[in-house]
């Protein structure tokens, strides 16, 4: 059931009318929302998602997928965050300056998991964007004409879950 849900969402995203760049952009914001466990940062990214013309379905898919990934690789974020915040001495003045800058401490950047996730998100920005953009193009050009004839894809497209996700995505796009 979980796999079908996942595939249905993925197909709905890549088959949407959005451009590959919008899908990539939405995916990036969703990825950051999913990975970074800081409410103020999530809120800022949510505002960006609504204001910037990116694909919301891709963002929702990424939030779902990367929330799970974040939970799994949380110890890695903690280690990266601790390394940057505590063990690398020359960065300390920078963190101190940030710590004394209005509003910034509210983001919780001085939490090991928040900083670790933020850094990982930043590192993944460009490769993920490129990967998603090229992937969507490749899917639409090469795979979609063939895949649409596959029985499994037809079954998924007819599933109520898929239809619900498409309707939700359209609702989001129409609202904004």
């Amino acid at each position: 059931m979980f796999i079908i849900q996942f595939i249905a969402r993925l197909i709905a995203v890549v088959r949407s009318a959005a451009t590959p760049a919008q899908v990539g952009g939405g995916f990036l914001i969703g990825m950051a929302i999913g990975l970074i466990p800081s409410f103020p940062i999530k809120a800022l990214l949510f505002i960006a998602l609504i204001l910037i013309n990116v694909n919301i379905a891709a963002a929702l898919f990424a939030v779902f997928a990367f929330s799970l990934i974040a939970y799994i690789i949380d110890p890695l974020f903690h280690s990266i965050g601790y390394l940057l915040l505590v063990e690398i001495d020359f960065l300390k003045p920078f963190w101190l300056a940030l710590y004394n800058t209005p509003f910034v401490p509210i983001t919780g950047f001085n939490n090991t998991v928040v900083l670790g996730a933020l850094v990982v998100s930043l590192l993944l920005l460009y490769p993920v964007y490129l990967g998603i953009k090229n992937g969507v193009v490749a899917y639409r050009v090469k795979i979609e004409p063939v895949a649409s004839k596959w029985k499994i894809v037809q079954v998924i497209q007819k599933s109520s879950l898929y239809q619900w996700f498409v309707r939700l995505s359209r609702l989001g796009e129409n609202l904004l």
Partner: protein
Amino acid sequence: MRKRGLVFLLVLSGIIALFLLLFSDRLIEWGMEKAGSSIVGAKVEFDNVDFRLFSLSMSWNRLQVTNPSSTWRNLIETGFVQFDMALEPLLMNRFVVQNMQTDSLRFNTKRESNGALAGNAASDYGPVGRVQELITEELVNLPAYQIADLDELKVDSIIRILSLHTPSVIDSLEENVDSTIQYWSSRVKKLPSEQEIKALRRKIETIQPDETDSPQEVREAIAAAQEIRNTLDSLMNTINQLDRQFKTDIRKTGKYDENVSSAVSGDVQRAAELADIPKISTAEITRAIFGPSVANTLLGVLHIIGTARYYSDIMKDDQPEKREDPPRLSGQTIRYRGMRDWPKIWVQNMSLSAVIAGIYGKGTLQHISSYQALIGKPILLELFGTDENGGSIKLDGIFDYIGEIPKDSLLVSVAGIPLKGFNFASSQFLPLEIESGRGSISGALSFIGERFLLESRIKGEEISYNEQDTEKDNDELKDLQQRVARSLSSFSVEVFSKYIEDSFSLDLRSDIGKLIAEATQQMLGDQVDSVTQEIRSRIEKDVSGNLKTLQSKMSKLNRTQETFEEKRRRLGDSEELVRSKIDALKKETGKKIFEKIQ
């Protein structure tokens, strides 16, 4: 840029703002209650929290902090409290309050509901937690005095439940006596037998100095006697050594009656403890009267110190050790020092007023902060007040966590407090309500690192009791104790407690305790003695069989010793005889030589 997105955000912001306008106070109240409760380990409740976003001010009508050691009472209760938060630190997620106004701060007030919470209290921390544990143990082990219980005491049941140690002590003594008997019997057997001693004696008796005619015969007789004497000397040396050893063994085993008596006393004591038979002494009675209130007050104060120490400790690390396994997605928050550095929480000055022991006092609590080392100032408490009847209160406290070693000190001085309505002590002894009188309390508490010291003196004068409070409940002891208390117009209690190098003591001294102890001894002493004697007799009866066996074995050992002594005596006599023969032979030789010369 999505225009509709902007509209959506504006609408959403409006809804959120409206929601916050309507529910922010409730949300903040809920958040503060939740955070406070988790810190204290018992319910923390705010009434009517009012938060004003634009002026950054907050107020509440009432705050109740439950005493986690006694969850039907509040550790602290405030009236109306108001304060403004500084904007700049707030933008940096730090709460700095310059002035906080608190009305009618009260301590140890009654709660309308139980403030208990499931979970642990943060104050069960380090040495403070250890002292709290030890005080709680003292509370649990308070003596109980019930005449009815003594009357109904079933000695048989107590002895049945109690596993007596005396029989095993006697068994062990028996084994010891058995092995001693075995050893000495074999040693005595190795000594010359009766026949051998007789043969030796006969041999000695055959030497007749008068019948020797020639010097040659005399020489031969002397040589024979000397040989016998050497044999006997060697035997006697061995026997004397054995004798010393034997006497030591006998001495050891001979102490069996002391061992049995001490084992019986041990069993009697354990039976008395099992039956809750109280020790009637001034110290025990004073503990029973004043122990609960003193211990509960002390636990409350220690809880505050423990909580303060705990949070000061976990918040002061600016470069902490890496936590290896923090909860998922929680991570570890790192704090930095420098520049415009405020601690996470800092209440610079709290003006407070409080009613302590019926006297209104005003004062300040300064520098309540989450990180004292950062601001370089300890928490300072000052409270002072007087009333028109000459009563006064003075409270000074320093809670210093700046350095490595935490230092807490508290000085209390309350004089001329009205005692009307004061319930003497929450013990079984004196459920007396004081009608009139005045009291004073002075105390000094110091907790430096792991060293805890407390000295306190409580005095009551010109006391009279509420006569209607007298309850005739057929409890003779209670009636007697109440009569004793009523006969006093003053009392004093002294409390001394310390915890130094893992050694704890809590001593209470009181004149009222002394008088009640004497009265209780008069009434209860005979009964306690008779029950204790009954237990002793019963234990002695139970072990009488074992004791008889032990005594018969001891008699056997004594007989072995007698046999040994007899042989020693006989051999000693023989040695004496041979020595006299040798002397006679020598004399005879001299005589013979003299005769020849003539």
